[in-house]
């Protein structure tokens, strides 16, 4: 249009402001970001990356108490491991452990969060107490559960006998399923506070009027949970599942303190297996190999977790 053209011809030029930054508005921000990251990067390299690379290297060597120097054997360790039924057993044990701990931590954490999200007297005190397992060292928790399950003076035996479920004290931890149940319970107990906190934060951002509208529409508790609360918490649940799986795959202290991986190998998850190979049998090469496989199983959930985090950051 002619008017536009004439305006373009009139376009004025402006002198630069003395306050202008040379590289544009965002200049220098990138450098600052790297500087902030530097300490974390150095710590990560020293504490995480370098041992991992070393372990990766060691997994290619035969390095036991009978070999004064590590002997390079290529992928022989991996071959041997994959053929080893005890290691495969360890993977199965780990899978069982991770499944039950993750499942119960999440369902119980969610249930507890929903209860603590309702307004009632003493709610804040109860919220505080609920964080206790989180603050306590895991070994202390394991110790408490050891006492609960103890075959002679355990709380569980006392209660079960009191109610007449059993006639004689049972050695709970000396059966395969009993030991597994115990280590799962400890881990669930340890995990609930963190998961509950995640869910409480998610519930806090829930629109109260949305639930009221649903009630007016005729939704009962079940439908409120299924149609409104769970969809709202979906992103949180996703993060918590992945985070829980990673944490449970790595769990060591509470298991080792309670059962030491026993009876026999019943609770010998990968972390315990690595520890046993390395520090009981002094087979460092094999321990490193198991470690590498173990990391490989953690990587997929970790990847999903990070991707979810990135999505949230956008």
């Amino acid at each position, binding site marked *: 249009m002619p008017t536009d053209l004439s305006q373009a011809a009139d376009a004025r030029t402006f002198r630069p402001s003395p306050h202008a930054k040379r590289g544009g508005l965002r200049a220098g921000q990138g450098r600052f970001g790297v500087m902030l990251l530097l300490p974390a990067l150095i710590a990560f390299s020293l504490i995480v990356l370098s041992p991992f690379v070393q372990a990766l290297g060691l997994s290619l060597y035969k390095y036991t108490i009978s070999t004064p120097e590590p002997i390079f054997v290529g992928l022989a360790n991996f071959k041997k491991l994959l053929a080893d039924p005890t290691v495969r057993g360890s993977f199965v044990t780990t899978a069982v452990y991770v499944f039950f701990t993750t499942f119960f931590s999440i369902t119980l954490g969610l249930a507890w969060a929903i209860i603590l999200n309702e307004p009632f007297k003493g709610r804040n005190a109860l919220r505080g107490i609920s964080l206790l397992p989180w603050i306590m060292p895991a070994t202390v928790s394991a110790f408490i559960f050891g006492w609960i399950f103890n075959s002679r003076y355990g709380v569980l035996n006392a209660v079960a006998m009191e109610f007449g479920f059993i006639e004689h004290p049972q050695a709970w931890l000396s059966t395969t399923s009993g030991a597994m149940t115990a280590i799962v319970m400890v881990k669930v107990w340890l995990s609930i506070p963190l998961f509950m906190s995640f869910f409480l934060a998610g519930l806090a951002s829930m629109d109260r*009027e949305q639930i*009221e*509208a649903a*009630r*007016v*529409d005729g*939704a009962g508790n079940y*439908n409120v949970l299924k149609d409104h609360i769970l969809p*709202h918490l979906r992103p949180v649940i996703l993060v918590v599942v992945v985070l829980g799986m990673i944490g449970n795959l790595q769990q060591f202290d509470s298991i080792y303190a309670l059962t030491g991986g026993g009876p026999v190998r019943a609770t010998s998850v990968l972390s315990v297996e690595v520890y046993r190979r390395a520090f009981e049998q002094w087979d460092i090469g094999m321990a490193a190999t198991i470690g590498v496989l173990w990391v490989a199983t953690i990587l997929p959930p970790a990847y999903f977790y990070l991707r979810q985090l990135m999505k949230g950051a956008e």
Partner: protein
Amino acid sequence: MTELVIQNLYKRYGEVEVLKDINLTVKTGEFTVFVGPSGCGKSTLLRMICGLDEVSSGEIAIDGELMNAVPPSKRGIAMVFQSYALYPHMSVAQNMGYALRLAGESKELIAERVTRASEILKIDDYLDRKPRQLSGGQRQRVAIGRAIVREPKIFLFDEPLSNLDAALRVDMRMEFARLKDRLGTTMIYVTHDQVEAMTLADKIVVMRDGRIEQVGSPLDLYHHPENRFVAGFIGSPKMNFLPVTGGDGARLRLPGGSVAAPRIGKPFEIGVRPEHMEITDGAENTLTGNVLTSEHLGSDTFAYVQIEGVERPAMVRLDGERQITHGEDVSIGFADSAVHYFGSDGLTISQAQVPAAA
């Protein structure tokens, strides 16, 4: 036949009494508006009617049945929330059909009613969208649609227009009027905006501090406010109030002039609406003052006249073409019939039912 009756209703949150002795009847098909300043308890009263909160004491009955302990979904009501409260994870169609789905209605019936409601509200093009993909006005329609689909006996609206911009608000106000004619259902509508109340209501309930101040038709409230609060709240621009400074039997002395005394009562204050005032010498009552400033809106001119001894300048509504010189001394004139008299207790001294007993 849907009659809502509220009797001696109180609501307390701990020590705080939010609703005090509410008595109200809403008849079938009536468009009733609760209006009052923010925090006066309108939403609370609506929530009691809806059943989202329990009453502290008193009765709520619909069609003669006591509703106090009946859950919201069983009261035959639908509520449109101020925040719309749409279900973010459901499409528009799912939002609207949710109540019917919960009630176990067939897919065909749900689809049919959702389609019909969406046509009425002109949202049939968005049925597959999620709420976040809609504009404010469209969300508002979906919220209304969700209520319509249920075919309730009573609609409850809590400040439905307050989240919309000014132009859209006028449009939606018209839609509400249309909807009311089309559906003919009993509607209760909450707002703090007296213009909305005046334009939509068959019956206005004016509230203040948890009490009902007056119930009546828009014109009723405009012409016969029962107290100073209602007189000041209803009508835009607001009524001018002037203190009575003395007087003899026939005339009351006011700052800047005088006014005819009422036949009965001892007025403490009088009120005259801006649209009942003129700038003229030849009227039954006149006040003198000085023009402070004026506003030209094209359709009207508002003159602010400072009367000595009155803090707030009086507002006078004039013809749109009228030119006013600022700083000029003028006479404000108004008829006897335009004067509202208020006693020291804030109640109107009514001239309608003059002395039967006196």
